[in-house]
């Protein structure tokens, strides 16, 4: 069965698996030397110019799997030698141009940047604004847009080229959403893995006797591990050495409750659960930060619940998200979460430990309500808050789901200009929501269906019991 969307993910997975196996069973010291030769055995190169370059790149991937470069505060890094220096020519006339009579390209160009020279269209780069109209107008499809996939994926324009044509990330602009990680066809942009920290935590717990290690899983998990039911995935996580598995959706229920109250008070509110979205607002709309909810994210809320009921507990979040690896280090989370794994890393961990996923027992995973679970998809919070305010008799809510950074930018510009008619803004950096997160194993339309189904299977249909639990745990009776 094909596990991943792309070969890049598969290579990353193989590297992670080797690193994890060695961290658990020994041999980590030789990781840099041995793993490259295992993954790129040679003698012929398969992806790069020679086997030595392939191995050098794998070595860098090993480095990322082991935590990346400590000097770089960003969780997203460029592997310099893996960047293939893609062309950045913009609009490019291919030899398919026949120099026709109608030359639609010329007619449609708003800047008169196209002329016909020697029966071929020629684009004046000085004038071209790369609007792309000519690419659509040409009846032969002879004009193509050559943009770097990384640059195109980055909606905050944080990626540029250095003098060697290598991609460079501007950490000041980057919101750690990970879009470039998934989109770079050469796998040259990678998220740092914290899996060694997690293994250390698990080992240090001595079988959960010194302290207990809890896994908090994001609701998007349900669409990710197609080898088993969610209840079997929970068993597999427990077999990795975790004391227990708790749904992050439980915290989402509580987040929803807080946000409804906060909206009632402030009248204009934006969500705070997506750390990339929050960073985006901070960096691009500082005057709107005041509208961002003070409620902590479901990840942090769940972790706090656990730690209040078990103060020595350690919490590892498992999700689809690179920016959660950034969020957990933020001061405002107060160290609630001890480490973060991605679904890709979870898969590598499960396979590295040799867990037979075909015959796993089922472990109940059911704490949260329908609403907490559908937080994973764009529009989920809007639906939750709409139902919640309706059931409590609150009127006047006009919510909008901002799906992806481009839409967030557009709607926030309206809010800033005083033109917004809405008063509740759900912001998610990834298009589609967390179910389409950068570190998801699969990015299929089916994910949305899976999450909806998972939501409807929740024992709790409303957030009432989650809120009850929150109140009891935070201020014991």
């Amino acid at each position, binding site marked *: 069965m094909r596990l991943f969307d792309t070969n890049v993910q598969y290579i990353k997975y193989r590297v992670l698996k080797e690193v994890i196996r060695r961290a658990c069973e020994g041999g980590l010291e030789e990781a840099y030397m041995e793993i490259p030769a295992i993954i790129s055995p040679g003698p012929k190169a398969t992806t790069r110019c020679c086997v030595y370059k392939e191995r050098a790149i794998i070595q860098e991937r090993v480095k990322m799997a082991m935590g990346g470069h400590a000097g770089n505060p960003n969780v997203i890094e460029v592997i310099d030698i893996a960047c293939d220096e893609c062309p950045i020519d913009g609009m490019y006339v291919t030899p398919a141009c026949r120099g026709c009579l109608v030359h639609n390209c010329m007619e449609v160009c708003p800047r008169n940047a196209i002329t016909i020279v020697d029966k071929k269209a020629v684009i004046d780069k000085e004038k071209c604004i790369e609007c792309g109209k000519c690419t659509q107008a040409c009846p032969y499809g002879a004009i193509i847009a050559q943009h770097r996939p990384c640059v195109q994926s980055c909606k905050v324009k944080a990626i540029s080229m250095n003098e060697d044509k290598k991609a460079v990330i501007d950490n000041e602009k980057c919101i750690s959403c990970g879009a470039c990680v998934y989109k770079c066809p050469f796998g040259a942009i990678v998220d740092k893995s914290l899996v060694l920290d997690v293994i250390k935590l698990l080992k240090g717990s001595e079988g959960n006797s010194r302290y207990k290690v809890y896994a908090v899983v994001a609701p998007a998990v349900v669409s990710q591990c197609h080898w088993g039911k969610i209840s079997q995935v*929970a068993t597999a996580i427990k077999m990795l050495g975790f004391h227990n598995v*708790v749904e992050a959706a439980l915290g989402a229920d509580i987040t929803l409750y807080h946000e409804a109250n906060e909206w009632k008070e402030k009248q204009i509110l934006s969500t705070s659960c997506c750390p990339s979205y929050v960073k985006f607002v901070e960096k691009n709309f500082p005057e709107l930060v005041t509208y961002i909810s003070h409620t902590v994210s479901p990840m942090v809320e769940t972790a706090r619940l656990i730690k209040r009921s078990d103060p020595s507990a350690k919490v590892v979040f498992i999700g689809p998200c690179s920016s959660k690896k950034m969020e957990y280090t933020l001061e405002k989370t107060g160290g609630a979460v001890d480490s973060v794994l991605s679904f890709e890393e979870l898969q590598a961990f499960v396979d590295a430990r040799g867990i037979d996923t075909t015959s796993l027992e089922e472990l109940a995973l059911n704490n949260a309500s329908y609403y907490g679970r559908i937080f994973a998809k764009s529009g989920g919070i809007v639906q939750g808050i709409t139902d919640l305010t309706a059931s409590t008799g609150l009127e006047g809510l006009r919510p909008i789901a901002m799906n992806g950074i481009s839409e967030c930018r557009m709607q926030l510009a309206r809010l800033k200009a005083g033109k917004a008619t809405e008063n509740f803004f759900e912001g998610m950096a990834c298009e589609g929501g967390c179910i389409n997160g950068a570190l998801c194993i699969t990015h299929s339309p089916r994910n949305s269906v899976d999450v909806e189904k998972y939501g409807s299977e929740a024992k709790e249909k409303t957030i009432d019991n989650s809120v009850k*639990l929150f109140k009891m745990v935070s201020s014991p009776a």
Partner: protein
Amino acid sequence: MIIKVCVGSSCHLKGSYDVIDQMKALLKKYDVEEQIELQASFCLGFCSKGVTVKAGPAVEVTGQEGLFLHNVNKDNVEDLFVKEIIPLLTI
């Protein structure tokens, strides 16, 4: 004394919240709210015997596990509370 009601997934499915609601009412009914603190726990480790309730001293003492009650539900909780937990208070 601290009473911990397991709210791990297995126990939750078997009705943790019913037990918690009942337990709150019982603390009031028997006027022991001052002596007993009610808490929740994410898995007490007896998933097949839920709902599990643990009654133990406020400060955990190594070697003293506390009292575990299994298969607690909203119908037997009062009975168990009176027979098993109340006597612990007098010690």
